């Protein structure tokens, strides 16, 4: 069974000036343990797609039609309370800019610890610290005392992103959204982070939705690629097939 299914999802933003259609009848499904790259130009609705699945859109946005289900269970009508439970456990997300995604006033340890506490409230303080250290190691951070007590502004971009990833992993998610997770990083760090994603998928068996506009990134790690344009998801298929089509269409024009 597919871990996530989206069917005919339409989302609009309602502003005083009128309605803006951000997603138009988007359908796709995500398989267990799959990495799906969602590609498209800026403003085509990639981020809105992730956020509407997670119900993290601003108040002015509304899901007009469509269904979202996880492992066959419909979650379209879930309340905020129910979504909160899902966000910390079933879904997780890594953001584009790690430097702003972390709370600047909290230490690395506190931020990862908070995520652990929300996911596993039954853990004792000591167990929680152990779990934080384990997560940091998993994300490729050295869980030294100094590192744990550092603030985000003391980290490099790559380390900050690893910290965000550790937070995301604390949720032990079935589906991880990576919204341009490597775009803000320099190329060598990008490669390391992508490698980390591959390793994590293998270890934890989670599915990853990788939003990117870099075909290289998609080619390196994705199993399938979805293409978006103007709020529509117009093509989804195996990575080689779709990327080849793109190359051909660009050569023709």
């Amino acid at each position, binding site marked *: 069974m597919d871990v996530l299914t989206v069917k005919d999802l339409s989302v609009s933003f309602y502003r005083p000036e009128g309605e803006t259609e951000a997603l138009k009848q988007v359908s796709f499904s995500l398989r267990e343990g799959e990495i799906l790259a969602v590609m498209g130009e800026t403003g085509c609705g990639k981020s809105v797609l992730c956020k509407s699945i*997670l119900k*993290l859109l601003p108040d002015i946005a509304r899901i007009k039609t469509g269904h979202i289900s996880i492992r066959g269970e419909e979650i379209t009508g879930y309340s*905020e*309370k129910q979504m*909160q*439970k*899902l*966000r*910390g*456990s079933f*879904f*997780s*997300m890594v*953001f584009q*800019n790690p430097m*702003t*995604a*972390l*709370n*600047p*006033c*909290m*230490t690395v340890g506190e931020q990862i610890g*908070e*995520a652990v506490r*929300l*996911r596993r409230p039954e853990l004792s303080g000591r167990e929680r610290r152990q779990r934080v250290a384990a997560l940091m190691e998993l994300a490729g951070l050295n869980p030294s005392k*100094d590192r744990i*007590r*550092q*603030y985000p*502004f*003391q980290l490099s971009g790559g380390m900050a992103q690893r910290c*965000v990833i550790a*937070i*995301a992993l*604390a*949720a032990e998610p079935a589906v991880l959204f990576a919204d341009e997770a490597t775009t803000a990083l320099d190329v060598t760090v990008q490669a390391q982070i992508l490698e980390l994603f591959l390793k994590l998928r293998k270890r934890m068996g989670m599915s990853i939705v990788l939003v990117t506009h870099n075909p290289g990134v998609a080619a390196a790690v994705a199993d399938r690629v979805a293409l978006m344009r103007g709020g529509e998801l117009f093509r989804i298929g195996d990575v080689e097939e779709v990327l080849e089509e793109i190359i051909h269409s660009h050569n023709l024009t």
Partner: protein
Amino acid sequence: MKKLYIVTILHNVGKFVLSVFLLSVLVFTVSRLAPGDPLYAFYGERVEKMSAAQQEEARERLGLHEPLVTQYGRWLRGAVRGDFGISYQYKRDVKEVIAARIGNTLLLGGLGFGLTFVLALFLGLFCAWREDRAADRIICAIGTVTSCIPEFWLSLLLLLVFAVWLGWLPGSGAYSVGKEGDAADRAVHLVLPLAVVVLGHLWYYAFQVRNRLLEEVRADYVLLARMKGLGGRQVLYRHCLRGAMPSYLSMMAVALPHILGGTYVVETVFSYPGIGTLAYESARYQDYNLLMVVSLLTGTLVIFCNLLAGSIGGRIDPRMRRHGGADGWEVKSR
């Protein structure tokens, strides 16, 4: 680490002393350059009946004939030893005059500050949480209108309604005659002045809290916090408030003298016997010695609070800490 800490303290003390010194020079010069004759404060109407020679003699006795620099030098020598001279108007040691009044001002200002601090935080949080909903809009509208009303006018309005029309509350003084020690009586007298002090300042700070929080709410890290499974309100309390607190505390530290000083107008309107009425009178009657001390007192408070604001901000906002702060970690240089 220890050494750096001491250096920081010395640095701040030095700044403090220098600022107070400059302030004293400024107040001294400006008050003496302002038009008016201090002899009026000392002798009242009698000055007009005095001959020019008598006036000259009186001036000499008060040391007002010397050049400004000499006068200032003499004042400074006395001030360092704790002798601030006598008040021309009250003919008593300046310190005594102020000591008799300062308690009243501290009570009014302190309570006003405390209430403003707590209520502004509470209102700001509430409005940020209910952003753009009905409750937020109503509070914002009330606040905008109220904060536009000048303090003296608001005082008069409240006086008219509660003291004159309704007769519920006393309109002037700090206590009824003969009831100096009665706490309940003092409390009743405090209500109106306190209401004006709080209403006059509350909204500004509440809006600041609200807007700071809304800025924080729009920050990227809120999304990550919500991804952890936190609800909107929890994110506000646990994450956003933390980001907004340093600037709120710094702001309130700066606001402390502002609110204490804001009691001056209120005191005058309600004839409340505090430093405010004293400042007003001393400036009006060229009571130099008194004016100097009142201004310096207020100024010292302002300077002290500003320094305090900086160090508070630095202490709770990790981004503002210097090398080797209290925790002993190093800020990475880039």
